């Protein structure tokens, strides 16, 4: 097991370096000069431009810039953006909201996805199963932003059950609808995964053994079928946390939440390259770490992986 953990940790290093270099290159090697664009129509004096370039290491060769950036990431010193705000501070205000939103979405998709998936899998081929399967396809097919608008109009405006937008300082109540919208697509995937897994395990030998020794139907389901069926679902959920945070951009836009997505989008449109790269790097790190934890968890749950 230790050998497996060590090997898996070593694999993360080149992936992290490669992914951040890729993002850094995409943002910094593009045509156009963000410093020259800072002053607008009249332009900044040469000396000021030169000073800004010096401050952001823009005169160094690309690879040196990248390494200096990496040093900043590991010392948690991301520098300041063009408006003079600490980027670490900008992220510290943006990330908590998005993390809360992503965790709420994760909880929603886990509870409802596993619940519906379990019932569909136990009744495979029946009416309930067929209906749930087609409905889940429909949820996957309708884009998040359409689901968001429909929810806003129906649940928010017409029925008035939940706040239409979250705004600044959102609480649990006002984040409930955005979390539901963010969770929708993954909910359908979790449901389908659980359903397939349950339907497969229900005819496994160990389930027959459990029944044969006289266990009641419900405890066979909860102790044997469900536990074994949850292995692929847990791995999906772990990996999904990273995608939820990266994918929250659209949901945050619709519900006017001041999270990572909104900050990133503003930074992109203002040409704040350092902020863009810092935020995306943190998102990629979350994604990599989530996948790493999932892999290790998987190895704990399923010994076959360790020895492969």
């Amino acid at each position, binding site marked *: 097991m230790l050998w497996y953990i060590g090997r898996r940790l070593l*694999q993360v290093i*080149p*992936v*992290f370096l*490669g*992914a951040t270099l*890729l*993002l850094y290159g*995409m*943002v910094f090697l*593009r*045509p156009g000069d963000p410093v020259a664009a800072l002053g607008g129509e009249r332009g900044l004096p040469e000396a000021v431009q030169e000073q800004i370039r010096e401050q952001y290491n823009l005169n160094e060769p690309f690879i040196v810039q990248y390494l200096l950036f990496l040093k900043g990431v590991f010392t948690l010193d991301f520098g300041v953006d063009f408006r003079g705000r600490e980027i670490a501070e900008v992220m510290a205000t943006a990330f908590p909201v998005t993390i809360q939103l992503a965790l709420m979405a994760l909880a929603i998709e886990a509870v409802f996805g596993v619940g519906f998936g379990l019932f569909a899998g136990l009744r*495979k*081929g029946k009416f309930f199963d067929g209906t749930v*399967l*087609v409905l889940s*396809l*429909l949820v*996957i*097919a*309708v*884009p*998040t*932003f*359409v689901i968001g*608008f429909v929810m*806003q*109009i129906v649940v928010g405006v017409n029925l008035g059950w939940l706040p239409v937008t979250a705004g600044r300082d959102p609480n649990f109540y006002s984040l409930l609808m955005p979390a539901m919208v963010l969770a929708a697509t993954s909910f359908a995937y979790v449901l389908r995964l659980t359903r397939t897994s349950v339907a*497969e395990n229900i005819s496994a030998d160990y389930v027959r053994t459990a029944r044969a020794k006289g266990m009641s139907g419900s405890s066979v389901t909860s102790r044997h079928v469900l536990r074994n069926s949850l292995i692929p679902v847990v791995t999906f959920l772990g990996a999904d946390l*990273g*995608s939820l945070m*990266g*994918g929250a*951009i*659209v949901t945050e*836009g619709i519900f006017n939440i001041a999270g990572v997505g909104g900050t*990133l*989008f503003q930074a*992109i*449109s203002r040409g704040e390259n350092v902020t*863009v790269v810092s935020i*995306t790097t943190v*998102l*990629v790190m979350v*994604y*990599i770490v989530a*996948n790493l934890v999932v892999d290790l968890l998987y190895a704990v749950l399923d010994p076959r992986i360790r020895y492969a």
Partner: protein
Amino acid sequence: MPENRYPAVPGQSRQPRRGQEHFAAPLDEGGLGAVDAVDTREKPSSLWRDAWLAMRVNPLFWVAGAIILVVVTVAAFPQLFTSLDPRLSCSLANAYGPPQAGHIFGFDHQGCDIYTRVIYGARASVIVGVLSTALVVVFGTLVGAIAGYFGGLFDTLLSRLTDIFFAVPLVLAAIVIMSLAPSRTTVTVALVLAAFGWTQIARITRGSVLSVKNNEFVTAARSLGMGKAGILVKHVLPNSAAPIIVYATVALGTFIVAEATLSFLGIGLPPSVVSWGGDISQYQRAIRVQPEIILYPAAGLALTVLGFIMMGDVVRDALDPKARKR
């Protein structure tokens, strides 16, 4: 009772022969009789033939097929479905006009016929979906097949490359690149989506090739003197194709959603291209005046994606012998 005991063997009488009535077991009892019973004139069964037989009776296959056929026809020949032009026939006098004869969905904020916009919007989605899927299949299969088949250093390098691109979420990467792209056309959007969307297919192909390459028929081909590349193309790839096809069908749907998301954010296709994502983002402004108009392009988008992912689902079930048995 004795009538049904043995399988019918063509050309052989069920009556016992003279003199053998009492002491000899019938000739057709046991394995040989079953071998003789095989009708060699029947077409040999294969994975694809079995899959087709299973799909043919699945109503969802016909629903998904019909949706795809309609959407592709609309995308290829929009003028068959509407006589209006999506841009030139607009008149501001009609802005937010209600549905009327000849304009069943009414008019949008610029007085354009919404029905015509929805019909013409199909093209952008289908082009982006098909193009990025084609790119992803070609590149992903190439990377996955080389990594899985040749192994060693190739495998290490290509697998780490795949991991690197996999670590960047698709929508996040697409947002960063598209906001920096100098020109935004259907081709650029497809290229960007493909550039970060190929990893899953490379992983699937690699796994599939790994499980196929040690089969007896590969050894047989090698002992017949076939070259490595020849075996890969002629024997290994065709036998690893099933999961790739299933994934590609579903991926087509997700690429269409991704394009719509980018266009909705205003960094996908420019307004000069009629697209469902772009129209949804425009019609969103009318959400207090006429919330229902947003549903028309959204329905076109959802129906198209539904057709493709439903087809992927049907094909997967048909190709999986375990799922087919029931």
